[in-house]
């Protein structure tokens, strides 16, 4: 609570100092814009170019871990100062910040609605409020689903290794569970999947309504799809076919390096994480194929402009440029972040892109076709508060602390508390 006061004192000091040196925010007559980001948006080169073509603009990137970014942003919005001129909002939390949209600039005021046609409809809609009247953010990438698997471990278990053959093994998640049984029977010491939580999340991301109905009412306890997703993931955990790892944690990285699990769910942005964790020694061992159960979206972000910034017009111009089709295409080629604009992911050059590390998998084609068939999940305002409760419940099952049924009951109770 003292944060606010400390903040105001710090801000006063900064103002005094800034006044002393003649105003640092517009040093040399340049407008300084800050970008609050997490992980890798692939903006480094683009920003240099933008500064070169806009001599009056100076851009500063601030990168922190995603969760830290969200917490910081929340406190900055609450305190009324400190937020970057442009901030990235991840798909999982955008609904939560949408509820506080009065802290953000309505981009429609700067003509954002004219850009609507660039994005896939669902992506555009996720970034808007009030039936499209309020434009909160412009879409960056998206996280269409794939499934990554270790070719060598599949071979050891007597399973096919070709990505088309593997895709045929699991049209549905029930089939995926059957493959898990076959795999475990042959090679019991290797885990089939890293964590039940990602399986659960992936299944849920393939449905149109998860914890919340489209009218934002809480429906987790009566939505069969949530229960089915939970049961599927919990069954893998009960049978000890999961590594019981915290997704994307240090231990997850170690397990990747040790090759102790054979499959993992792969939204487009996860390829870079797998490559970083598994290292060069595993090059060509991982491959990527179609996920069971069809297309789905997990992640992807938006660029929004907090009202507290001093240069909303210039910030908007920059955000508009960074999310434009030409730039999205370049980012895909450089980092693999999947464009959220159909014209871009249908582009011949994008479709022809292969990923060397993943055994030359045609990632452009795999993710684009997954994007075509996806039904985006409606994210409720309190989605980011409810989701983790089910995640920890699955961890309890994997740890052998609770039965699937008990974990489910406890999760429902905790979720009920979280939506209150």
């Amino acid at each position: 609570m003292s944060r606010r006061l400390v903040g105001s004192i710090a801000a006063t000091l900064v103002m005094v100092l800034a006044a002393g040196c003649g105003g640092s925010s517009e040093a040399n007559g340049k407008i300084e814009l800050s970008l609050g980001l997490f992980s890798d948006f692939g903006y480094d080169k683009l920003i240099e170019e933008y500064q070169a073509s806009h001599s009056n603009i100076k851009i500063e990137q601030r990168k922190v871990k995603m969760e830290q970014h969200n917490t910081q942003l929340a406190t900055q919005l609450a305190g009324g100062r400190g937020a970057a001129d442009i901030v990235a909002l991840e798909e999982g939390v955008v609904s939560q910040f949408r509820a506080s949209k009065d802290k953000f600039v309505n981009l429609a005021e700067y003509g954002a609605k004219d850009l609507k046609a660039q994005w896939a409809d669902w992506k555009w809609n996720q970034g808007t409020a009030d039936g499209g009247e309020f434009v909160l953010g412009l879409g960056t990438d998206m996280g269409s689903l794939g499934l990554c698997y270790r070719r060598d471990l599949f071979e050891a278990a007597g399973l096919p290794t070709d990505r088309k053959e593997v895709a045929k093994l699991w049209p549905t998640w029930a089939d995926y569970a059957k493959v898990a049984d076959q795999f475990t029977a042959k090679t019991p010491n290797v885990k089939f999947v890293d964590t039940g939580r990602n399986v659960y999340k992936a299944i849920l991301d393939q449905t149109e309504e998860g914890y919340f109905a489209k009218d934002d009412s809480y429906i987790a306890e009566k939505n069969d799809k949530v229960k089915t997703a939970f049961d599927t993931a919990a069954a893998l955990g009960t049978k000890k076919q999961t590594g019981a790892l915290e997704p994307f944690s240090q231990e997850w990285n170690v397990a990747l390096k040790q090759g102790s699990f054979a499959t993992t769910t792969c939204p487009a942005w996860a390829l870079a994480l797998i490559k970083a964790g598994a290292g060069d020694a595993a090059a060509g061992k991982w491959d990527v194929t179609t996920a069971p159960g069809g297309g789905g979206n997990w992640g992807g972000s938006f660029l929004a402009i907090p009202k507290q910034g001093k240069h909303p017009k210039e910030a908007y111009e920059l955000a508009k440029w960074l999310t434009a089709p030409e730039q999205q295409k370049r980012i895909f080629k450089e980092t693999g972040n999947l464009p959220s604009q159909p014209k871009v992911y249908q582009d011949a050059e994008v479709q022809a892109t292969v990923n060397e590390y993943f055994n030359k998998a045609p990632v452009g084609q795999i993710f684009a076709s997954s994007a075509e068939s996806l039904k985006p999940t409606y994210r409720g305002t309190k989605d980011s508060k409810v989701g983790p409760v089910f995640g920890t419940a699955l961890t309890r099952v994997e740890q052998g602390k609770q039965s699937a049924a008990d974990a489910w009951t406890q999760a429902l109770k905790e979720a009920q508390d979280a939506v209150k």
Partner: protein
Amino acid sequence: MTDLRTRTEAAPAASVPSSTQSKRFGLSRWDAKYTPYLIVAPFFVVFAIFGLYPLVYTAWVSLHDWQLIDGNQGFVGLANYAHLFGDANFWNALFNTLSLFVLSTVPQLLAALGLAALLDRGLRGSAFWRAGVLLPNVISVAAVALVFAQFFGRDFGIVNYLLGLVGIDPVDWRADTWASHLAVSTMVMWRWTGYNALLYLAAMQSVPKDMYESATLDGASRWRMFWSITVPSIRPTILFTVVTSTIGGLQLFAEPALFDPGFAANNSTGGSDRQFQTLVLYMYEKGFRLFDAGYAATVAWMLFLVVLVVAIVNFSLTRRIAGKE
């Protein structure tokens, strides 16, 4: 500044004529009366801004439905407190806090005593050892937690590997309540034992040597001398360390937070079933994950009261022991 000047002027005032003398005398009386207050004022001003104001403001917030971003949503009186007393997760966090506190503080202070006794014997290269025991304390807690989290890894951790050598099954350090408390306490002990040992050492050095000499003449053993001379002589220091580690221990946050791999992923519940969620972690979860600032403020105030109660217990202990001497 002006007060200092009046003071220096007031000194020779005795020799000046009486008409101005009374005036000067009045000024110096004002000076004597208020200058001390002015001199100590900076502390109180700083305390009011950084200590008292947040305390009162937090209390104010705890009486409201207060969302982190959207702010005040209306006065709710003591509803947050009423909810807190029926909140199983709060009691769980309180239990974890006290358990971690006892598990880390008691062995820590005993080990620090032993370490200080060793250092007090005049080892060769004593400066090296003394600096060495402080080393864990100056290393960033994040680095410590990162390394210990690896040690206590379930699948590839060193501790489980060593246990395996003596035929013990691997322990899932984050799944079991006691195992997790043990692991987190180890981290705390590693960081603070050396620091406390140095405080004890400083106190031990001021114990008069002739007491040991006469005890030796009486034929007392080293063990006996340690418990009958050394420990009673450094009692005030022991009580000081008890109080400071109480306050630090009850506010434990960084170690359990970083021990939980879910903390980075915003699942900051301190374990899958809140096995090692301390009060501060619970406050963090409420305030910064669920954005319920009102409830987080309530937890903060309860934590303040808990620390206060334990501090009062320690204070009365201090007085009792001081009275005995």
